[in-house]
């Protein structure tokens, strides 16, 4: 595990209220789960940041070790891993996601 990459991940998840590690980019997602997750957050109309783990193999290997979660996408809110595609959609259905986002964005 690269210490520099680990530092970069820590700093990224702490400085971005909503950070999503995805395959591809929001406009050109390379995986259906990444696309569905990005679209959910787009539908909220809130600012969020993404990192492309396909373009950066160090991230792809180090993020799962950092978060202790094996799969992508990974959604971090306020520095904490909230889940992947299934979990954030299930939370949205239960009305548990929006309060977290509002709290993180201070609205």
């Amino acid at each position, binding site marked *: 595990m690269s210490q520099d990459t680990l530092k970069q991940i820590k700093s990224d998840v702490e400085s971005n209220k909503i950070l999503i590690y995805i395959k591809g980019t929001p406009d050109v997602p390379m995986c259906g789960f990444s696309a569905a997750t990005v679209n959910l957050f787009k539908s909220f109309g809130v600012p969020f940041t993404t990192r492309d783990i396909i373009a950066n193999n160090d991230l792809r290997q180090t993020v799962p070790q950092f978060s202790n979660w094996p799969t992508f996408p990974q959604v971090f809110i306020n520095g904490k891993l909230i*889940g992947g595609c299934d979990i954030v959609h299930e939370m949205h259905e239960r009305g548990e996601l929006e309060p977290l986002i509002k709290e993180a964005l201070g609205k």
Partner: protein
Amino acid sequence: MRESEVKELIKKAISDAHIEVTDMTGGNDHFQIFVVSREFNGKLLIDQHRMVQQSLGAALNDGRIHAVQIKTETPESWAKKTRSSGNDFQILN
């Protein structure tokens, strides 16, 4: 690993749990797991899932279980869903 063995592992870790385990492929290594427990109260969904994953610990790591699809509910969140679907499931002690 049999469905009943998966169930036992979870029951050991989450004693009040209502657990349903389905072998997805017939290969005894890919399971759909549904758990309802009071121990999930107040926990984020991801942390509920982690509790179930951790209960399977060794079996997931050594490959006896290859993949799991987990669904978790608190008694309250499950009651909401079952009320709307007419299911009369109740959590039992």
